[in-house]
């Protein structure tokens, strides 16, 4: 007898339909899985057998052939267990096969018949909804996450027995209601606040500008000057994620198995990988390809401390994502695309020892080492960084002052207002913020008064600005005006924006390019 069950396989962060066909024939007892299963799927046979027997079902002692269709790509992982069990039960006539046509099944089996959570539940639920399924039967631990998809019935099951009861039509688990709005609001509450950091006025301003325009940012300063401390506060001043943005982030975390029991990533992610990371670790890779740190930072902040210490291939691999907001990894079998639209926040020492330019410490580096250090950052990367700031350790007066610093909430309010102006202006295009503007958009939206044009010309004449830097300065000037609530860009916006181009980095990288 033949039965079918629908399930899904993960390709990157997307789910694709997989049909599990089980056929039971008289013959010597055997259990064969075909359709390019990997080792974990092969082992599924043992889990299904034990789980069925231990749940007091009969495991048919006949010839069982299971096919995973389409058979042309490799199926990996234990997530097919539940669909396999369902198909075998139906093929052996122990449950009705009728609901299997309307519901998809995803879950990993334990030998005792329990059902364990899988990675990518949100992607599965989304796919189930799009392919017109009525509902998704999934491990109970994944149910909350899967319920984020509107209009799909999510059946969370804990044991194979419950699965059978559901398929027989008598049992329904209690409905799960996930209040995404409340979760997003709760996500506002932050552990840290900008107000806790004293001094660092210019760095705070730069963070605000970067947050408001979606600009990538680089901090250059000696160790212990507060680069990391302020970076951790970047998510607190970014606008709260929209539901869709949170959903995208959740999806990536779910695929990577990093959801940690949460149903929704309601905060903007903040990822700070160590500089020993490989390029596969940063942008994704492996077999099958899994998302990297840059994808986990999707819709959030990717903080790269000690930027110059990162291996060059890893930094080079960030070029495409910085340009497109996603990366396509092409492997022999297929191309996988991971989303990665993040705000890059990078920090670096000015030289190998870190003390070059520090007020009270002496740099012990060879002069050429200082030069080489920043020139490691490739032009392609530096080109995408709009805001560069020098960071000094705060002075004693600043540390001791009890002057009230603005809180994250205040800054965030300005950022949100600035972003609102941008999304209104950029409505209908792919760009979400000023940093995303195409050259044509920048030309249209960054009209300058005569005085500001004159300032740009002077900067070009004096080589304070390279032709490449020109476009970046325009975008930052646009953001500065937006933050100030003005439609017109003024000369002071341009002069401030020029200050965010750090000639050291720009020249060092162009020297390499030459």
């Amino acid at each position, binding site marked *: 007898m033949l039965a079918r069950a629908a399930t899904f396989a993960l390709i990157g962060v997307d789910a694709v339909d997989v049909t599990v066909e089980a056929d039971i024939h008289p013959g010597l007892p055997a259990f064969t899985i075909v359709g390019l299963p990997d080792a974990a799927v092969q082992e599924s046979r043992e889990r299904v057998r034990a789980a069925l027997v231990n749940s007091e079902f009969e495991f048919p002692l006949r010839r069982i052939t299971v096919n995973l269709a389409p058979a042309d790509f490799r199926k990996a992982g234990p997530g097919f267990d539940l669909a396999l069990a369902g198909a075998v039960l139906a093929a052996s006539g122990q449950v009705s096969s009728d609901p299997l046509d309307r519901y998809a099944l995803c879950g990993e089996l334990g030998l005792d018949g329990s059902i364990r959570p899988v990675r990518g539940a949100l992607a599965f639920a989304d796919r189930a909804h799009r392919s017109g399924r009525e509902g998704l039967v999934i491990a109970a631990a994944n149910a909350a996450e899967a319920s984020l998809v509107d209009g799909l019935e999510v059946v969370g099951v804990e044991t194979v027995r419950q699965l059978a009861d559901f398929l027989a039509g008598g049992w329904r688990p209690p409905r799960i209601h996930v209040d995404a709005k409340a979760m997003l609001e709760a996500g506002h509450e932050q552990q840290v606040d900008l107000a806790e950091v004293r001094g660092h*006025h210019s760095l705070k301003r730069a963070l605000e500008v970067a947050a408001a325009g979606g600009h990538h940012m680089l901090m250059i300063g000696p160790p212990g000057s507060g680069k990391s401390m302020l970076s951790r506060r970047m998510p607190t001043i970014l606008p709260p994620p929209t539901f869709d943005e949170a959903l995208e982030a959740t999806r990536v975390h779910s695929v990577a198995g990093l959801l940690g029991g949460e149903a929704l990533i309601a905060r903007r992610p903040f990822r700070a990988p160590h500089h020993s990371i490989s390029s596969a670790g940063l942008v994704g890779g492996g077999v099958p390809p899994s998302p990297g740190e840059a994808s986990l930072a999707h819709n959030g902040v990717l903080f790269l401390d000690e930027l110059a210490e990162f291996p060059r291939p890893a930094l080079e691999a960030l070029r495409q994502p910085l340009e497109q907001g996603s990366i396509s990894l092409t492997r022999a079998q297929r191309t996988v695309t991971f989303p990665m639209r993040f705000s890059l926040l990078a920090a670096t020492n*000015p030289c190998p020892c870190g003390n070059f*330019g520090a007020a009270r410490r002496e740099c012990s580096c060879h002069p050429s080492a*200082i030069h080489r250090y920043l020139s490691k950052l490739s032009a392609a990367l530096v080109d995408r960084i709009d805001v560069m700031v*020098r960071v000094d350790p705060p002075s004693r007066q600043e540390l001791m002052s009890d002057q009230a610093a603005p809180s994250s909430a205040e800054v965030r309010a300005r950022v949100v207002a600035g972003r609102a102006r941008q999304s209104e202006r950029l409505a209908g295009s792919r760009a979400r913020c000023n940093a995303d503007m195409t050259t044509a958009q920048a030309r249209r939206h960054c009209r300058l008064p005569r005085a500001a044009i004159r300032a740009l010309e002077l900067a070009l004449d004096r080589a304070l600005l390279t032709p490449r830097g020109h476009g970046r300065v325009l975008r930052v000037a646009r953001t500065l005006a937006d933050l100030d609530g003005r439609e017109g860009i003024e000369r*002071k916006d341009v*002069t*401030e924006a020029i200050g965010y181009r750090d000639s050291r980095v720009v020249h060092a990288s162009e*020297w390499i390019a*030459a």
Partner: protein
Amino acid sequence: MDRRLKAERVPPATGFTACDRCLRRSALLAAMAHFVARSLDASRKVPLLLALPDDQFVAAVGGEDSRQALGVLQGFDAARARRDASDAGLVALCHHDERFPKCLIPSADTPRLLYLAGDVRLLGLLDETPAVALVGSRRATGYGLEVAHALGRELGACQVPVVSGMALGVDSAAHEGALEGGGPTVAVLAGGADVPYPSSKRRLYRRIVERGLVVAELPPGFGPLRWCFPARNRIMAGLSAMTVVVEGAAGSGSRITAQFAADLGREVGAVPGQVTSRLAQGPNALLADGACVVRRATDILDALYGAGHPSAGERPQPRPLPDLEPRLAELLAAVEGGAASVDRIARSPQETAEVMAGLGELELMGLLSRAPDGSYVRRA
């Protein structure tokens, strides 16, 4: 990887000559370079060693029986050396040629031969118009770089040749300044004249070859050893009527250059620095010993030509301060007072935007510049 850069413009046929013996001398220095390195313990001895005739030189560095020495002394192929030089785009000129710079002749340790790249006519100019060597630390501060650049620029504008070593820091800033001022500049390299050293300055090298002159004592393709730098410094001092130290620690190469200049009876000048700065120890000690105080290019011109003498083209005038808005004047005063970053000026985050815009404005006016460490410096 071959680090040599073929000089972009092949120099015009100059008729400059170099005799076989002098070519051989240069090849001998290169062949014995490692022996020299081994036999030296103090850089001051380098000129003494280089003053010796060939056979004594070889004996002094302990290489009489070495394959390298015999190879050069017995089997030297002068035709090939000439071909190598012209292949590298270089011109060789030895001290037997009357066009060899006279300013180099008087000392015993003078190089017997120079390899040249770029505008070889500049060599003749050095004997007519006194040149100025601007030297200093490779790890200069923003102040040092700014002063070196400004001195180079102002001397360049007066068409006074600026001699330096193309090293990182002060040397490069001086060359850059001279090129910006539109004046002649001469880079004396420690290795071959076709090898930009340090390699990160290859852009500057190309510009100097196009518009100035590159000079070296060692044959094409030679990568410098430690001792080659003091050896190079003696040529810089020799080519110049005055050596000005911009920034340098107490025992630095720039002090050695100044000592060579003093030994040759040339002028020595120094740019005063903060007494607390390690990099000001060199120039401040020179000043204490009676070196000429150099604040602007006019101080140099006064030392060379006598006070107020209107030589060497037009004298640079201190630029009058433009009329500044009160707030910009305040910011400028703050930077002049030592506040080098926005954080040292702005008293609140609200103020930073305005301070940054103001400093940017001053930068556009050319009153401020950004040092390599990102701090703001008052332009000289």
